[in-house]
């Protein structure tokens, strides 16, 4: 049963991954990528990595891909420019790809990864999240902290590259908008009554 599910999900994953790079429509490609993430999550469940699978769905499918779809819809990519020279480079590209695939098949197709037994299945009471939590902050504390620094750098870099205060721009300050009083914007003036000039 497990191997049947594995092959089922793997097939879906491969088909979807191929679709990502072959379909013409960018939104369809992005949606295929969602399917890729989802089936990989299913494969991770088969490997008893439930927490990671859920995280993959929540983070990648739920957040990253939605953002990605927004970007795809907002920018107007001219695919004809991107495809320029495609046929010119195709023969060389196919040659390189086929050679590499053949080499990889020869190198890895033979039972090279033998010698390591599959880990024993865990008992039903095994708690994935608790185990992860207990080693993440002990055994892996150094890599974990480093990953957090990388995220901090990403934040700084994004702000440094995009934040620009232009001198001429008009912007609203909500705090000042809320605390506005009548006297700030209405001025009552006394005007002497004037006789309406009769039309000639």
């Amino acid at each position, binding site marked *: 049963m497990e191997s049947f599910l594995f092959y089922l999900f793997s097939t879906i994953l491969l088909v979807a991954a191929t679709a990502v790079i072959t379909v013409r429509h960018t939104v369809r490609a992005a949606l295929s990528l969602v399917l890729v993430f989802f089936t990989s999550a299913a494969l991770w469940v088969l490997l008893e990595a439930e927490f990671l699978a859920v995280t993959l769905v929540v983070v990648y499918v739920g957040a990253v891909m939605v953002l990605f779809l927004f970007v795809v819809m907002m920018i107007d990519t001219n695919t004809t420019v991107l495809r320029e020279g495609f046929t010119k480079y195709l023969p060389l590209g196919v040659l390189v790809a086929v050679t590499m695939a053949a080499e990889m098949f020869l*190198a890895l197709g033979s039972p*090279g990864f033998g010698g390591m037994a599959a880990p024993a299945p865990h008992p039903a009471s095994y708690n994935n999240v608790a185990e992860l939590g207990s080693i993440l902050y002990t055994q892996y504390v150094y890599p974990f902290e480093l990953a957090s620094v990388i995220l901090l750098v990403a934040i700084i870099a994004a702000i440094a590259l995009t934040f620009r205060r232009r001198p001429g721009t008009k912007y609203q300050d909500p705090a000042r908008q809320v605390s506005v009083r009548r006297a700030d914007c209405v001025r009552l003036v006394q005007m002497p009554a004037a006789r309406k000039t009769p039309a000639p």
Partner: protein
Amino acid sequence: MTFAMLKLAAASPEVLVLVGACAILMVDVFRTQEKNTKKGAEGAVLTYWLSLILLFLGAFVTFLGFGKHTGLALNGYFLKDSLGDLLKLFIYLAAFVTFVYSRDYLRERGLLTGEFFVLALFSVLGMLVLVSASSFLTVFLGLELMSLPLYALIALDRDSATASEAAMKYFVMGAIATGMLLYGMSMLYGATGSLDLGKVSEAVRHGDQKHIVLVFGLVFMVVGVAFKLGAVPFHMWLPDVYQGSPTPVTLFLSAAPKLAAFAMLLRLFMGALEPLAVEWQQMLAILAVLSMAVGNVIAVSQTNLKRMLGYSAIAHVGFLFLGMLATNPQGYSAALFYMITYSLMSLASFGVILLLSRLGFEADRVEDCKGLGERSPWFAAVMAVVMLSMAGVPPFLGFWAKWEVLRTAVDAGHVSLALVAVAFSVIGAWYYLRVIWFMYFEKAQDTAPLVPTVGMGVLLSANALALLYLGLFPSSLMAVCVLVMGAH
């Protein structure tokens, strides 16, 4: 597991730099930024001085702990040894010198912002992590932490189209290189069952896995490392990035990250994959010959000084690989000596370009050196020392670096490779000497006076004098290189 088991003392410089960089970030955020980003404004002077102090303190702490607390720490993800300490000291030095040289250039262009220094400090932290990496995991994380700020630093000048192009190229190429490296790591992990460099080495030595899978993984790792160091045929990004980046960033790129990438080369090939030395020796030999050939020959026809130095960097990487080929401690220490020498020379050469530049004028063409001998005899002499040293003319330091590498290569029986290296060095000498010719035997096109700040003038002179002094008395630096390799 207790706190003491982490052996945090071994990583005290890293902790200091991390905490310091975060503190400087906060200080910078709470200062008003408005007036600093205008052209000609004072800029983030406080951040600049704090960054220099932090680098000095980091170097001081590393120096105090030199060769102490050696061994694995932080649950085996961190390796403290004197080799790492030496490289770290030179990384601090390179970053320090970069900051001092860059200050005026950045200030004139309104780029002297806190982000420049904070990003550079985080990049330095990544280099420190990479130098001390003892697991594939920390190699990868250190590499990313080093590279991400670099991409942003290149693009920091948003009004420059060439800088954006350079940043994009570097980013895409860097991502491909990281992908290659990770793929290689995953293969080795699959074959050996461990991410720990020591355990991988042990597993490979006992060799109960299929050899071909290991070599397959090794190929991808060589490609990844060659990308980062800019060895031919993975060098395409390097000239464009060197030319397109703002000169201070090129200066930063050309020295400190190279030292860290060299450390990665040592940790991966000398450390984890030494049992496969026969395999990677051949690969590095091909890369070395191609790099020396392409780098030196193409550099001859360059008119842009930064691009020329980029091709010269490619050629120098070829020499570096030649040192690795001996696969013995002598060869590794010769390569280490070469790398340190190159970083010192590179700092001085881009320092002179920064000195010649001013607002609205980038002295990045070879012709811009014309008549420097008349305009400023002292700095022309500085540039001449650097160029002669890069060309490998005695008695400058560059000569000894080339000499050591060639000597170990011949000792290890690679006579033909050494001959090829000498031949291409002779070709390379031409374009270095052309710069000197322009400086002394051509009329100046640009007669604006050179007014370096005191700090830059003193440091640049010291940099060139160091090349001369260490060239006359190379034994001390060489002895240190041999010592840290022997202790390994």
